[in-house]
């Protein structure tokens, strides 16, 4: 189909001399992909469009018009009055320690199951991998009750237990993501030559030095990929804060935006601005670290 279009086409591209290697022009494919791409961009584009228009303009001219002002007032209002600065900071408090802990613990476990032969290493690796595949809702009720009945001094938590603390959200996120990271890292470490640590062993390096000075530096690409992926995963986590955090002003941004849906019911412009603000950090990571993110996702599936 695409070849015939190319032969009869009168567009400059088709008329231009063929640069050798590509006999096919793929016009049908391009049309299909372009249509799909436009459809794909509509929801995000509509949110951005709505967010950029002040509510007065939309009230006056309607949502489906280009009339009126375009500015960043909704963003400023969401950031200050909507509490997005607080929510955003809460997301940072949860995401950063959770990602670092996940990667550290997973790297310990992955090293132990992939670089050392012992009786139960495969069994434990299976347990870790399976744990990550469970639907989180299966564990929710017992975890909630465990947190509620785990009493701590009021000086530590104003609820008197682990509910409403960042620690429980960080701990559960870490435990849940650790399985996936252990699986990916152990595959990565297994692929490293056994001679590396054998040679170190001859030089008298103990387990810790083998881990710290030989394997860790070699795993940098895997850490970059997994780290990016986990930042996105945990930043995007909606569920665990929903279960554990009760004070609205302690929620991370992904969970908090749902509350705004109720608050800003009549002001879709502000809700759209909130949605766009929530997208921005992921978009920044996407633009800067797309390769790492993609590598992280495919690392997990490369060994099926």
């Amino acid at each position, binding site marked *: 189909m695409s070849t015939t279009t190319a032969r009869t086409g009168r567009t400059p591209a088709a008329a231009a001399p063929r640069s050798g290697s590509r006999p096919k022009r*793929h016009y049908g494919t391009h049309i299909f*992909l372009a249509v*799909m791409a436009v459809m*794909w961009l509509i*929801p*995000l584009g*509509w*949110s951005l469009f709505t967010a950029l228009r002040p509510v007065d303009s939309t009230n006056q001219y309607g*949502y*489906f018009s280009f009339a009126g002002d375009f500015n960043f007032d909704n963003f400023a209002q969401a950031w200050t009055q909507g509490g997005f600065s607080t929510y955003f900071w809460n997301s940072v408090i949860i995401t950063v320690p959770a990602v670092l802990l996940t990667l550290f613990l*997973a790297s*310990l*476990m992955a090293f132990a*199951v992939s670089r*050392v*032969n*012992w009786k139960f290493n*495969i069994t434990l690796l299976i*347990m870790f*991998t399976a*744990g990550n*595949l*469970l*639907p*989180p*809702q*299966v*564990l*929710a*009720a*017992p975890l909630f009750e*465990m947190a509620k009945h785990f009493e701590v001094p009021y000086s530590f938590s104003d609820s008197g237990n682990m509910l409403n603390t960042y620690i429980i959200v960080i*701990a559960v996120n870490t*435990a*849940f993501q*650790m399985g996936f990271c252990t699986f990916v890292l152990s595959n990565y470490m297994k692929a490293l030559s056994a001679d590396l640590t054998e040679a170190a*062993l*001859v030089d*008298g*390096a*103990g387990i*810790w*030095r083998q881990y710290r000075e030989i394997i860790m530096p070699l795993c940098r690409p895997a850490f970059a990929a997994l780290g990016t992926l986990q930042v996105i995963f945990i930043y995007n986590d909606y*569920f665990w804060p*929903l*279960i554990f955090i009760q004070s609205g002003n302690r929620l991370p941004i*992904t969970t908090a935006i749902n509350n705004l*849906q109720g608050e800003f019911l009549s002001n*879709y412009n502000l*809700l759209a601005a*909130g*949605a766009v603000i*929530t*997208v921005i950090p992921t*978009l920044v990571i996407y633009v800067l670290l797309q390769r790492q993110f*993609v590598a992280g996702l*495919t690392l997990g*599936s490369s*060994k*099926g």
Partner: protein
Amino acid sequence: MSSTAQELIPPEAREPGNGRIRRAKGGRVRRLSGRDKLVLSLMVGIPTLIELTLVWLPTLMSVGLSFTRWNGLDLGNIRPAGTDNYQFISQDYPPFWPAVQHNMLWLLFLALIATPLGLLLAVLLDQNIRGSRIYQSIFFAPVMLSLALIGIIWQLFYQRDNGLLNFLLGTAGTPQAVDWFGDSSVNIWAALVAATWRHAGYVMLLYLAGLKGVDPTLKEAAAIDGANAVQTFFRVVFPAMRPINIVIVVITIIESLRAFDVVYVINRGTNGLEMLSALVIQNLVGEGQVIGVGSALAVVLLVISLVPIVFYLSRTFGKENKA
């Protein structure tokens, strides 16, 4: 540290003449010093303890609690209930069967529409066409977003009076305008379209990686044998991507069982959007906490999830145990 480690190295590893170290299985364990064993047991012990306490213990507790009656307040109030909770959800709990149907529908929709769409996009983009990277970035962008946020973004698109979709259909402001997320006869489909927006990009990404891994000589051989592009794809390329296919099957099933965020953001999983995962949470956070009923629903979800999980694990680790 290095000097102590040097001393702790067992003699056979230090012997210069006997420098070749056997790689036999288990050989390495015997060469570990006491210090190494301690380090190793901490390396394994700490993550394992966390995994057991925060993942597997709660899973077992869900199973246990599903056979009890409890309001979630005092631990002393837990009463054995036999299989009452299971009888209740299957016979007297109206949202249960709709939820099972919706989970099935979710799976079928992702498997028959979203996943093939992602595969199609991957195959088209794998042809080295111009702008391939831009297309990839566009289709992949929703994968970066949380499903909760996707619910909000699509809410803006789907609204009855001010949503873009009703405007494009020419129904905005008229009585024919559809409240896509509010109308219980269409909202599951509207939610599925929003979920597809994300899932197709994810599948595309995995298949793009998979297609790059297929040996090009296979395609050439098929072409020499006179196979056309479609035959080459379905008879040669697609079967060659078996490992990725398995991952995608598992991801699709697990995503459809986990589907929670989108429906919970829209209306907490009620009124046409009942899903098993949302019912679990409704019973946990609702007014009168019915932990037993919630746990029974969680166990149903768990048992179904174990099918793809066991399938995946046996595929992944089965080879290794034999090797």
